[in-house]
């Protein structure tokens, strides 16, 4: 076993000792907020981990990387990468009882940059994540009518025909790109603020503020609904989906294994990235949440339970989504086939019902023999169920285009639409709680805000500030900005932060000390599995994923897809390159959080070197308390 341990003087002084923790626990003198019960804590963590990615990223990955065979890399990496990292974050938060900045600066003052980086990433992610929630709310507001507004194309001004952009693409595409986003044709063409999206954004930030106004006191109550409702809706959709024609085709297609995909390294890379991002690691939120736990909470069991729930939810959501996609693909296939049948029937005046899907080919041949001239002039469309099923869509395209189209074909569509968007809203909001926690707690730890200010005010200012910055995402080019932030703000910096976390805990804090801490907290030393994964396997996996990601991202030509009605191949999205100044922004978004870590370390090192004053860290807060008139004047 690697026994490398970097020198770390003064560590004992920065962290509470075991006896102090025991005292805090017994006397309940902790001034930190606390969970009302274990269920709140579990639901909050589950809500943070289970997010929109489980619904719209995992099914796509599963289907495009060999279906059932994808489970193998996914589960392996879940066990080797997800669970160890999760356990590490829970344990370190519970032990050091501080938010992410506090934890890392306790371990070593130069590591404060890790916490600050996590705060920056949480902030950038919460900016665009809440905009997605605003889009979900827009669709939710529009679901209270029959027929749904995205089921038919609107008419032109003189009512003679459908609007051209809509007729060429589809009603759902038109509703998403034109009536919701009103998207421009490039990221440089900013356009004006779309007022309807601004109203929805206001709602989204308002609801977030209401739920996080007093920290976990209020979010703890909100998660009872936001974490449980998605499972209820998924079950309802599963039952509904299984009764629709063609849903089983979708599920079978999703899980049909294609073992050759396992040889493709991209499959493993995507699986690793999905496990990592799905667990919302390195945001700092999980460390904060577990710091509110009692000292002897069994964090090992929690980590395993939450990982299992997260994995199960991904698979469950994939099943539901693909049952509905199977239904949609079958409907489209039937429509396509019916059109062909109609063409044949109308040309040859055959009675209705004579030509069905089963005897279509025979009838085609018959007609060809009777009248080859007419037959040759007919235009038949190719209908392929497999290609319709593998129209793999992910992300916003899945939720707002594919799924909404499927909903319009179901009976009582407004009901299903409302349920679906409530589910997406709850999934997104519960993840936002963790993001905001990852922003607010470091702000308090860094002492940027005066401690006298009430929590409501700090939360209000943070939400208001983020709301104002998020105006970029409701411009006409907002969709492109969001895609930019999604690709760069939340990908590479997180990998770096997670790697630094593991390295710090194992080698700077000391794995021996960490083992003793866990033994103190939960009663037994972590077994060989945890030792191996923490020391070697998980950091290695993180490093490999980071290197691959970095190399791929740096080498690939940066193109982004735009919706351009004047494009020749419309309605296919057009791929164009970013203008020069956007590259600078990308470097800032991805680079600043990543570079804060070494920058802060260097800054601290220089300060330590330059200051030749004696070390003041010898002063420990006194344990004996003076009491005047019954008031404890020096509370720890």
């Amino acid at each position, binding site marked *: 076993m690697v026994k490398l341990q970097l020198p770390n003087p003064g560590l004992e002084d920065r962290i509470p000792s075991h006896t102090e923790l025991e005292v805090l626990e017994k006397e309940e003198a902790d001034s930190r907020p606390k969970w009302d019960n274990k269920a709140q804590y579990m639901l909050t963590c589950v809500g943070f981990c289970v997010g929109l990615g489980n619904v719209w990223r995992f099914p796509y990955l599963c289907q495009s990387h060999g279906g059932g065979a994808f489970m193998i890399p996914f589960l392996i990496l879940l066990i080797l990468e997800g669970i160890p990292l999760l356990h590490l974050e829970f344990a370190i938060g519970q032990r050091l009882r501080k938010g992410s900045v506090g934890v890392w600066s306790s371990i070593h003052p130069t590591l404060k940059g890790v916490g600050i980086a996590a705060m920056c990433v949480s902030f950038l992610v919460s900016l665009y994540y809440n905009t997605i929630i605003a889009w979900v709310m827009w669709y939710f507001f529009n679901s209270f009518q029959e027929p749904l507004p995205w089921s038919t194309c609107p*008419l032109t001004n003189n*009512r003679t025909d459908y609007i051209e952009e809509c007729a060429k693409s589809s009603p759902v595409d038109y509703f998403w790109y034109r009536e919701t986003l009103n998207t421009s044709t490039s990221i440089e063409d900013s356009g004006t603020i779309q007022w309807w999206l601004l109203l929805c954004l206001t709602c989204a930030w308002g609801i977030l503020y209401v739920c996080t106004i007093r920290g976990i006191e209020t979010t703890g109550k909100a998660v009872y609904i936001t974490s449980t409702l998605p499972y209820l809706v998924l079950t309802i959709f599963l039952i509904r989906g299984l009764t629709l024609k063609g849903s089983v085709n979708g599920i079978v297609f999703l899980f049909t294994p294609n073992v050759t995909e396992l040889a493709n390294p991209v499959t493993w890379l995507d699986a690793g990235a999905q496990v990592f991002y799905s667990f919302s690691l390195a945001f700092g939120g999980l460390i904060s949440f577990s710091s509110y736990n009692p000292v002897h909470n069994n964090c090992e069991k929690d980590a395993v339970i939450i990982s299992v729930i997260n994995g199960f939810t991904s698979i469950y959501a994939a099943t539901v989504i693909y049952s509905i996609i199977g239904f949609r693909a079958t409907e489209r296939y039937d429509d396509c086939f019916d059109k062909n049948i109609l063409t044949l029937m109308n040309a040859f005046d055959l009675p209705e*019902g004579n030509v069905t899907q089963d005897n279509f080919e025979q009838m085609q041949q018959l007609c060809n023999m009777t009248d080859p001239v007419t037959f040759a002039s007919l235009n038949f469309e190719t209908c392929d169920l497999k290609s319709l099923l593998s129209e793999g869509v992910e992300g916003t395209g899945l939720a707002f285009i594919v799924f909404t189209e499927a909903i319009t074909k179901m009976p009582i569509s407004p009901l299903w639409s409302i349920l679906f968007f409530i589910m997406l809203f709850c999934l997104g909001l519960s993840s936002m709680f963790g993001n905001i926690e990852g922003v607010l707690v470091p702000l308090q730890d860094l002492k940027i805000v005066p401690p006298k200010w009430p929590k409501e005010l700090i939360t209000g200012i943070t939400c208001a500030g983020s709301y104002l910055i998020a105006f970029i995402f409701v411009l006409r080019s907002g969709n492109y900005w969001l895609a930019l932030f999604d690709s760069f703000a939340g990908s590479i910096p997180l990998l770096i932060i997670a790697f630094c976390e593991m390295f710090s805990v194992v080698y700077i804090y000391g794995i021996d000390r960490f083992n003793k801490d866990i033994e103190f907290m939960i009663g037994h030393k972590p077994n060989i599995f945890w030792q191996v994964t923490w020391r070697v396997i998980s950091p290695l996996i993180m490093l490999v994923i980071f290197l691959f990601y970095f190399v791929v991202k740096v080498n690939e030509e940066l193109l982004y897809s735009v919706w351009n009605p004047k494009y020749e191949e419309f309605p296919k999205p057009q791929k164009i390159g970013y203008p020069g100044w956007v590259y600078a922004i990308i470097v800032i978004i991805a680079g600043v959080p990543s570079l804060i870590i070494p920058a802060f370390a260097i800054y601290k090192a220089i300060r330590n070197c330059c200051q030749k004053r004696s070390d003041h860290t010898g002063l420990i807060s006194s344990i004996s308390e003076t009491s005047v008139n019954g008031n404890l004047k020096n509370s720890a």
Partner: protein
Amino acid sequence: MLGVLLLAFSVVSVASAELCKPDAQNAFKVRLSIKTALGDNAYAWDANEEYLFKAMMAFAMRRYSSKSTTQISNVLLCNVTDRVSFWFVVTDSSKNTTTVPGSEVEAAIRMNRNRINSAFLLSDKTLQFLKISTTLSPPVEPSTPVWLIVFGVVLSLIVAGIVFLVVSGIRKHKKKNKESTERENLEEKGEVTITIENGIPCETLDLKAGHVNGVFAADDERFTSL
């Protein structure tokens, strides 16, 4: 006499055959998809249905031109197929040998399309007049868009929530401040009776807010070993 009648009949039928044939001038092709529209309740297309069709066309012509001269016999059907599709023309009521211009027939059908559709329990898609394009029905738009109403409801709930939480937070804060200042005031006046033991008030001991001085040796070391 019989011969003359036969001759006249054949002339008429020849004439009508000439007037009504596929792609004739002013002739329209009609296509019905009864099974698609009605499924199990589909009726069979027979001579009675054809009669109804002729009657509806005559009705449409009468309503359109408002001269009540068009008769059922003026509507000629031909080339009925199993699909169910056929061609028809409307002959001029005054002279049996010419057909009414296609534009007039088209206008008449457009005006009465709804009535014609409902007579056959079909719709624009299932009762097709192939040369007459369907007019698209304008969507029903309520005065206030529905989404604004829902948005208004949600926003008012949010504002109510914020106001309630902020106000209750301020009240709690004020109560806490008032309590602590009251206690301080009372203590200054010496009116608060706090049972004191060893200089430490019993209340704080009960609240367990006191700290154990870890410097003092633990229990089992109290007695020096012999």
